[in-house]
């Protein structure tokens, strides 16, 4: 054994000095800026008309004002209880074909772009409708025939046909954030990377390290936010995100929608607040009716009886939401268990599943192939379904592929039992639009939308009821018709909504959002957020 040499003593001294000179990471207690960990490698577009991923919307929600919104933290879309954000008032005509909106007076855009006027609102809505904009949300604005300016603060939206739910699809915080005409015209494509809004936080910079940096807008019409700003940091790796949250480097993080995640985070950070946005994503499972044996209703029903909701519920815990019809119970008119006749509840009954399979000519079950996306929520659900189907003799051979390729293959009609995740506003017809109408049926050329079952094309569907719904101006009558369509789907069983999977966030208990999150899209406003002492 050798003693301490002069060289090793110098090395130790140097290492000690170097370590002590290192800057210490700032903890939440030292700052008044929210650090929000996003599960992405970068934001892609901060133009709300051209948001490309959900996390883009998490950021744009803070920069822009929407016209109206449900009460914060809810999806309560009763028009009488809406939060008026940029709008001061909204009137819907009795025939549900005209929406008259008055903006608040004196609202200012960031960076000296002047007052928010009805002309900016018209510009925003016209831009969303214009095919040249390339907005993915254009589908929600197609029912608009014209946007008329009434005066400096008032404008009118005229629809092609009655729609008492337009505000819930097109005027809440999704895409209808008011943009300054002057800024968009001046900045052109650059607006995506340097947005100007009138919301509680103004855009400061996009920094490779700090992510998107926003600062509180001093002249916000609702009062300057209590925090100095928000930094949306890019932390795509879920382990790093969780550890950074546990260490206090991040105040809020996007969670991981996998069984057991909330338990893990509570174990690591017992004081963490868990925010769940219900209903979250709808997980539609579609039988391809053009493929055998799924053209046989007995096989489809057998599979339904083989699926045990309790297994899904136990696996996902807090993240799980029951769905009995097509729409989750949180949607207006959504079915609960008690609303449905026993034969349409499809309660778990493996014996009945086996009996139906035997009647269909598969006493020993059968096997089929299906691709699944590598995305964590797709993996979790399909693996659980695979296991449940195995119990009744059905071998679902899964092949995991990359998410974009999965969507491409499914859109080219390569699916058999297809899982698709979709988040919509709580309007009962939106899942019909995307997944159950004849016009949405996928084809081998990549046409259609997300009707992977070919319902309405391979067999009569709900297109006739849907036409009635679209012609109906009365909201309550629409809901009755929507429920009728749902019952038909449950009887025909071309697809089912296996569960709603809530979006989940972990939050530093010191960070108070100013309201409780019960329902929402996967993003919400931070305008009322503050750090407790």
């Amino acid at each position, binding site marked *: 054994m050798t003693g301490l040499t002069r060289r090793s003593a110098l090395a130790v001294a140097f290492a000690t000095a170097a370590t002590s000179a*290192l800057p210490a990471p700032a903890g939440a207690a030292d700052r008044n800026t929210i650090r929000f960990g996003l599960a992405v490698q970068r934001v892609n577009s901060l133009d709300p008309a051209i948001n490309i991923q959900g996390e883009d919307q998490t950021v744009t929600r803070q920069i822009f004002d929407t016209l109206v919104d449900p009460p914060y933290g809810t999806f309560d879309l009763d028009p009488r209880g809406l939060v008026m954000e940029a709008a001061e008032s909204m009137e819907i005509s009795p025939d549900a074909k005209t929406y008259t909106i008055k903006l608040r007076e004196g609202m200012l855009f960031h960076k000296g772009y002047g007052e928010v006027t009805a002309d900016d609102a018209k510009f925003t809505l016209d831009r969303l409708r214009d095919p040249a904009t*390339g907005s993915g949300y254009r589908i929600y604005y197609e029912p608009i025939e014209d946007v008329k300016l009434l005066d400096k603060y008032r404008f009118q939206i005229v629809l092609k046909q009655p729609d008492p739910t337009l505000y819930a699809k097109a005027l809440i915080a999704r895409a209808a954030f008011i943009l300054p005409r002057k800024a968009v015209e001046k900045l052109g494509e650059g607006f995506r*990377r340097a947005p100007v809004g009138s919301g509680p936080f103004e855009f400061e910079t996009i920094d490779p390290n700090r992510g998107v940096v926003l600062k509180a807008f001093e002249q916000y019409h609702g009062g300057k936010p209590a925090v100095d700003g928000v930094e949306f940091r890019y932390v*795509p790796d879920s382990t790093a995100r969780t550890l950074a949250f546990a260490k206090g*480097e991040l105040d809020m993080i996007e969670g991981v929608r996998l069984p057991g995640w909330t338990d893990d985070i509570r174990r690591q950070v017992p004081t963490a607040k868990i925010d769940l946005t219900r209903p979250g994503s709808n997980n539609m499972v579609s039988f391809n009716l053009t493929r055998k044996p799924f053209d046989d209703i007995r096989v489809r029903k057998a599979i339904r009886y083989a699926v045990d909701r309790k297994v899904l519920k136990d696996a996902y815990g807090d993240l799980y939401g029951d769905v009995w019809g097509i729409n989750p119970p949180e949607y207006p008119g959504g079915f609960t268990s008690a609303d449905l006749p026993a034969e349409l509840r499809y309660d778990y009954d493996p014996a009945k599943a086996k009996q139906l399979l035997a009647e269909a000519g598969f006493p020993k079950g059968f096997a089929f192939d299906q691709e699944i996306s590598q995305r964590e929520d797709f993996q979790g659900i399909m693996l659980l379904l695979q296991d449940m189907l195995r119990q009744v003799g059905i071998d679902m051979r899964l092949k995991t592929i990359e998410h*974009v390729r999965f969507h491409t293959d499914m859109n080219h009609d390569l699916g058999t039992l297809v899982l698709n995740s979709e988040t919509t506003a709580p309007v009962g017809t939106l899942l019909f639009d995307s997944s159950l109408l004849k016009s949405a049926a996928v084809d081998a050329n990549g046409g259609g939308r997300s009707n992977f079952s070919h319902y309405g094309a391979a067999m009569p569907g709900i297109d006739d009821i849907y036409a009635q719904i679209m012609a109906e101006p009365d909201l309550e009558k629409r809901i009755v018709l929507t429920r009728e369509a749902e019952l038909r789907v449950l009887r025909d069983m071309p697809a089912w909504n296996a569960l709603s999977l809530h979006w989940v966030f972990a939050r530093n208990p010191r960070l108070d959002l100013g309201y409780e999150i019960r329902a929402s899209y996967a993003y919400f406003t931070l305008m009322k957020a503050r750090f407790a002492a």
Partner: protein
Amino acid sequence: MSAYIGKRLVDAFLTILLVLSLVFVAMRVLPGDPATSALGDLATEDQLAAFRAKMGLDAPLPVQYVVFLWQMLRFEFGRSFVSDETTLSMLATALPYTIELTIAAIIVGAMIGIPAGVVSATRRGRAADYAARGLSLIGFCIPEFYLAALMLIVFALKLDLFPIMGGGDAFPDRMYHLVLPALTLGLVMAAFTCRLTRSSMLEVLPRAFVRTAQAKGTTERRVVYHHALRNALIPVSTGFGIYILTMLSGSIPIELVFSRPGLGNVLVNAISARDYPVVQGCLALFTLFVVAVNFAMDIVYVLVDPRIRAAA
């Protein structure tokens, strides 16, 4: 010598051309529509068609290929389909983070791996040798992303010595953020370097010139480090060159786990979004780097080894 360099330059050019062509084909063969990725699932067929026309994706593939090669020759990588940023600016922002990680990891790998290899060879069959070999075996076996997670848990979370994420802002902060990623990547490299140095030293130590040096009464330290190691480093430097190339791909999971805004992060995001210009730009840069390192290694061999110089 100049003929040798000229031949190597032609080889390098052809390699770049071949790799870029493969990248072009691979991106087009890969399932997934860049228009859908950029505009989202709600986009209509008209919108998708307009996007493809705007980005030149509706042109016949040979035309796209020629345009692509012409752009590459002029170092025009185009704009991201997704964010509309210029690819060049995205690469310029990300590249320094990857370069500093690679250089720091090489330094860590060399500083740990070479001395460990020497000790292991000079104390063959003793405890130090077994320890060095055992540790290098572990270094080979352990996946980089797993080691990265362990580093984060121990040094960042439990001991609270280092930050968990990001690349840092000013120079001291950047170096501070670099420690754990560089250590992770460097330790894996150290395992490789240790084994390489050990085997090379074991070949050199019995040679006559080493025995001569010992017979002349030269100190053991001087014999090992001045005579033996200098000769043993020739194959080690070759291995280093190869390893630097693999380290580029190794840095991708490290950048992801440590949330560093480097090229790996940019590339992974671009591939999943089918963002052709960014993928092509990233891979062109990687290719240039690999070819440049290979070229440099060829030149170094010529300078170091007189036999190759004579053949050249």
